[in-house]
């Protein structure tokens, strides 16, 4: 069981994810440089961490999505390897075409850093099998471009395919657009590809992984990945 955390120029949650995986979840994890064109031997999980790759200057994630390591990630995914994009990493995955849609500026045009309630819409993915379906979890968000957008028909298809994994929610368990802090369509906070092995989400599970820092709801994600990789959850 091995995880690789990609470091783009401007990534700033790479060390956080390495800490969460390595020190807290017990998943051996190592950084990978964006200029590398192959993943380290034996990589099971690739994480694209949060941050401002290339300053997010043209479009968030656009320049990172064209870096050499992404070519390797493109080969990793069809093999069934796990790919997790968090925040900027989610933006990179959409820009790379590994996940559908785009992430636009928050509807209030401001950066939002805040705890958020999410409803886990699926518990049959490699990333969420430790959560009961419909569970409410709290992960913080911290982004300026988190409004998930997809043209109408495609959005319907996405929903029909049950690709939405995390949805912004209220404490009473209701979820949907009304609870999007950022204007995200249908309240979408995280989605998977059809096969279910590539997940992108705006909220930060690695920031919800220690009691000292205010919450441990994110541990479920690491535990899910662990048991999936150990074969138990398949």
């Amino acid at each position: 069981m091995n995880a690789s955390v990609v470091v783009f120029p401007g990534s700033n949650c790479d060390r956080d994810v390495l800490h969460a995986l390595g020190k807290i979840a017990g998943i051996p994890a190592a950084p990978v440089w964006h200029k590398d064109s192959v993943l380290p031997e034996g990589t099971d999980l690739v994480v694209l961490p949060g941050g401002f790759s290339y300053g997010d200057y043209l479009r968030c994630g656009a320049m990172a999505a064209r870096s050499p390591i992404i070519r390797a990630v493109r080969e990793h995914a069809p093999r069934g390897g796990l790919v997790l994009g968090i925040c900027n990493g989610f933006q990179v995955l959409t820009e790379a075409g590994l996940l559908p849609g785009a992430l636009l500026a928050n509807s209030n045009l401001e950066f939002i850093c805040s705890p958020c309630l999410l409803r886990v819409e699926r518990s049959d993915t490699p990333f969420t099998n430790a959560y009961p379906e419909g569970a409410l979890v709290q992960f913080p968000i911290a982004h300026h471009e988190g409004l998930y957008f997809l043209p109408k028909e495609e959005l319907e298809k996405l929903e029909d395919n049950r690709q939405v994994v995390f949805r912004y929610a209220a404490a009473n368990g209701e979820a949907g657009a009304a609870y999007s802090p950022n204007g995200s369509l249908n309240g979408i906070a995280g989605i998977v590809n059809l096969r279910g092995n590539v997940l992108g989400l705006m909220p930060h599970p690695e920031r919800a992984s220690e009691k000292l820092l205010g919450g441990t709801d994110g541990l479920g994600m690491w535990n899910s990945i662990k048991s999936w990789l150990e074969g138990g959850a398949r």
Partner: protein
Amino acid sequence: MDYQKAGLRPHEYETIRRELGRDPNETELRIFGVMWSEHCSYKSSRPLLKLFPKEGPSVLKGVGENAGVVDAGEGWGLAFKVESHNHPSAVEPYQGAATGVGGIIRDILAMGARPIASLDGLFFGRPDSAKTRFLSNGIVKGVGGYGNCVGVPTVGGKTLYDERYEDNPLLNAFCIGLVASDSIVSSQTAEPGNLVVLLGSKTGRDGIGGAAFASAELGEDTKASRPQVQIGDPFVEKLLIEACLEALEKGLVTSMQDMGAAGITSPASEIAAKSGVGMILDLDRVPLREENMAAWEIALSESQERMLLIIRPENLDAVLSLGQKWDLDCAVIGKTVEGNRFILRKDGKIFADLPASLIGGGCPEINWPAERPKDLDLRQSFEFDPSGFSADLSKTLLSLLASPSLKEKTWITRQYDSMVQVNTVQGPGAPLSLVRIKENGNLVAIVMEALPWSCSLDPYRGGYETMARSLRPLWVAGAMHLGMTNCLNFPSPENPEQFWEFSEAVRGLADCCKDLSCPVVSGNVSLYNESAGRAILPTPLVCSVGILPASNFPLLPGKWKEGDLLFLAGIENASIPGSHFQSVLQGRLAGRPLPPSPEMETGFMERALQTARQRLASSAVPLLGGGLGIAIGKEAIASGVGAQIELELPTHPLALFFAEGGARALYAVPAAKVPEFIRTWTGFPFRMIGKVGGDSLCLPHSEPIPLQILSNVWKGA
């Protein structure tokens, strides 16, 4: 060019001529003009700064470097400093604030430390003016835009509104970083025969003369006179941080300095002077962004995101390849030699040849005359007359809670990433911020404080109280202070009354530091914060840093439990003068704040630390802005539970609830802990004032306030 145009005074010019034994040439004159400006030379404040105590057992590296370093335990040090970027933020709020944040981060980096947290101090004018809206939006976006991208969490700050900041808003940026104690970088370690390397962005005509600009009043034609606005590039700064830390880790760096005011000249001459070496720089080797730049422009450009590295020749290849790895410009621009000359060459010609120590250290001090303000007695005469105010405590509490300086600051704090680096134990919204050190498990506690209203009434007492108030939240949480840094924001020192206020405030800060053994490890002075005769309030801002051992969980606010008993620790009769009550509801500052009491402070410190360490309370807050009343209100909101306040009222209930100052705190104590709590606080004034419970806040003889309303009013909902 004559010396006055360069910004020099006659006796300064004479000093230069005498020291050089000749007339300086034009490039040299411009260098002195910038390096001997107030901003770079501290000529008006140096005599005052000598008052600060700078030594202490916690100090690993004191004043004299970019930032002081204190001992964080187990071989780790904390480098921290606060700096102003007031003038630039007044002119171009977004970029002014952004580059302020970037600059302080590089200061911390220059110590070899990884920046782990930032705080920002914001002082704005009239809350409802279009100008304030423009400036505050821009400044907040600038702080966030830079900090979020560079990946340093903004974990707290301070925001105050007063019309005296209308034309001169203040932005003070604080940063703290973590460094292994045996790897602290110094500017005193260059050796002859080293190479001088410039790493980071290309150089353009940005902010040339910015330091001089920050050393004069803002004029009517500020926009026109502003040379070239500095643009921050947080993305490049992030790369620069990683590249420098990697270079340090690999042992490639002999000495290092950040580039801020006065461009290349400042760090280069500083390293030369402090290390006792000479330096020759070839300005044509500086990577440029613009064409036809003159020698002096290259030497003084304040282009951002650059660091100056001093390295041994054998490490050059490794450093160059690091530059390549991180997509940064990296060039050898000179070398160090024996001697003390600082020489600038371009195209084979010598443009400056100066003794290195003269550039940064030669400017004569100015001892401005000080004069106690003539109207001070009048302003200080004050008798509290409650008759003009509503006697209803609930009403008063609500109107204060809704006042701009006290109400919730979420519109600001949610634009800041306060959690990146996964160390934030307490982010914005509490009297102190707490950041975990992964390397040793300890928690760093940080408080930013400023009390301009008190300082304007009595700068000595105000300064003392500011300092004490920055320490109390540390103690209440259970942290012991390690040191402080400060930013002295004042108007022109050339006005004797203003200089008197400046001196008195510094004396107040310094006395408190001495009384409570808190060393001053770094700081910054920003003068001339006035325009068109309108001066800012005297605004010394302090950031105190403390440490909490990994084994002690902090005692935090916002944790009232149903049934807890509420205790006020400290005196009951604090001061209305200088308080939010006075400023907001009376609309006029008058009287004198409380006199200092070192005995009360130390008595409070010991008991507060003990209370926290023995967990004698569920929740605790020091009394800060708005006094006891606001503390009760905010605790109720944060805890989501009400309280019944019951106590015998003094003659002036308003003063009991809303006066400020002094070593005081509000504790919520579980019934079982009450005897121990009482034993701990015996010998210090304290009393029980009520009980936690219910869903309203009930103040004596006043309408109960439903929690929902209390919270909505505070949040401005």
